[in-house]
């Protein structure tokens, strides 16, 4: 039973984790329940062996596939996203200083390119906030919580032999 669960979880994961952006938008169509079941849930549990110190426990958890998976999901979302919004912001700032002529070009009435770009920054910030919160809630929270209990159980076992 457990074996089956695990297998399903791994397949779903391999399929869905590939592109966090794709995931964020695609799951918006399929709705809560569908993505909830597509299973960030059961990853490989941390292998339980007899361990002696807290340092060894943390090293072992760090090496476990379940943790590596959580870390990979986190980083594959935040690193590209951070790079993207920082570049977009820098481009905006540099354009405002180096190309004021372009920024002053009127678009409609009193609204010019600079206004559109500034409001665009607000919009992308809101969108990325939403996308990140959704990604973390659906793709990471449950797996991280399981790891937390597993790790704490192991460290407790260490304190009370």
């Amino acid at each position, binding site marked *: 039973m457990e074996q089956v669960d695990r297998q399903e979880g791994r397949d779903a994961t391999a399929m869905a984790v590939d592109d966090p952006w794709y995931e964020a938008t695609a799951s918006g169509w399929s709705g809560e329940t569908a993505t909830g079941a597509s299973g960030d849930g059961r990853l490989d549990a941390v292998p339980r062996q007899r361990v002696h110190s*807290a*340092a*060894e426990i*943390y*090293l072992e*958890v*760090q090496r476990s596939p379940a*943790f590596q998976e*959580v*870390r990979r999901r*986190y980083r594959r979302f*935040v690193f590209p*996203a*951070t790079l993207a*919004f*920082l570049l977009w*912001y*820098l481009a*905006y*700032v*540099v354009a*405002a*200083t*180096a190309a*004021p002529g372009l*920024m*002053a070009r*009127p678009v*409609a*009435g*009193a*609204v*010019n390119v*600079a*206004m559109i770009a*500034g409001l665009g*920054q*607000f919009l992308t*910030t*809101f969108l*990325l*906030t*939403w996308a*990140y*919160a959704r990604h*973390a*809630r659906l793709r990471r*929270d449950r797996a*991280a*919580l399981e*790891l*937390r209990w597993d*790790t*704490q159980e192991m*460290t407790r076992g260490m304190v009370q032999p």
Partner: protein
Amino acid sequence: MTGSHQTLALVLFSVFVAVTLAITTWVSRHRHGSAEEFYAGGRLFSPLENGFAIAGDYMSAASFLGISGLIALYGYDGMLYSVGFLVAWLVVLLLVAELVRNCGRFTLADVVAARMAERPVRIAAGTSSVAVSVLYLVAQMVGAGSLVALLLGGSSEAARSWTVIGVGALMVIYVSLGGMRATTWIQIVKAVLLMAGTIALTVLVLLRFHGDVNSLLSTAAERSGHGPGFLAPGLRYGGDWTARLDFISLGLALVLGTAGLPHILSRFYTVPTARAARRSVVWSIGLIGSFYLMTIVLGFGAAALIGPDEVRASNASGNTAVPLLALDLGGGAGSTGGTVLFAVVAAVAFATILAVVAGITLASSASVAHDLYTSLRRPHAKQYSEVAVARVAAAGIGAAAIGLGLLARDLNVAFLVGLAFAVAASANLPVLLYSLFWRKFTTRGAVWSVYGGLIPAVLLVLVSPVVSGSPESLFPGVDFHLFPLQNPGAVSIPLGFLAGWIGTVTSPEPPDEARHAETEVRSLTGAGAV
């Protein structure tokens, strides 16, 4: 300026002080005196509450008065501040909030010390946190002073000085009696008041223009005397290349500084889990984003309805644009509506200053007591409890901020905040990101990155045109400026990152793999989080 709106504003402000003091006493009735309670308010705030408190901590008088004032004076260039202040929250949300909540207990230094030799990194991170907080406090004090100068209808130096002293004294009372729990509730009350006041003013501005943003913008451009140039970048930062570089420098500082502000980081410890920390940041991004969108309307509204010249006549750096706008929207000086609205805005701005100041004081007293005192005390000296030290530290920091606030009173508030952000981005952010994400980071790297960002940032400000060599500087009489930019960010932020990297690669000791594993596992899963 008639007497009636002064009186009303003072009455409203006294009500706010009375309410917040009541909160403080009510909260301190249940006080346990534990560090958990004092620094983190028991860690049981909900994401919604903490989201409002974060927004309250962040939306300072600098934003409310300073940014709207800059937009009223310089048009689009003032708006660049709003964008930077908001985008910065993505750094906090994506890279910092959850991981810091999981790894630390009360301060920034906790996160770094989790995998490094404790004493040197605590001293370094504690020092830089206090430096950032004091700079930020000065900005708030200056805001309080200029608001009162307007309120009392003249440049009564004594009144301004007493205001700054009064604000300082109140914040020490809030913080040392109420700790984090009282400070949080004050932030929440203030955030609600500020949002309500801003929404009301924005609606009034838009109603005045019959909801036509286009006509608001073109009226502002026309009234400014700059024509369409008022709506495009370049009025303030468009001059020579020094001014343009200065702007890029400021832009970097704004977007990277927020994640290094000690009073923002300490807010994540008031919620129980990383998930709650994330949800509180999402709430605060919603609040802060809509607030800055409204300050843009207010700034252009002030330019359109009051005119940049009259704003400049009231306060050279534009800090009084929004109160003047409120007076006009209510029906002009002497009318009942104008009186009431002006009084409300003045009281909200006071509340804002008080609340922000309390938040920063609390965070810096935590740095003094939890990081500096515990690392620097002699082992056999008489032991005072950390919380007692924090209470005394709050008073000391209050005194320092009052002194500097009196000295710096003629500088623009938003600009001063820009400096605080530059120091935060140079000294605090590199060490935080390296600790959370870089496996090979070592103690030497941590210490070097803090000092390698802090010292250049502070030195460059001292030899910049802010301090000497121009008519607007702190000491206009003398000239010892060597560095052309007002904001040091473009130089000092890369230096902070570079110093951390050099310190790490030249380290004699290898990185501690086990403690890195512990930091990484704890930061991403929350295992062992307090």
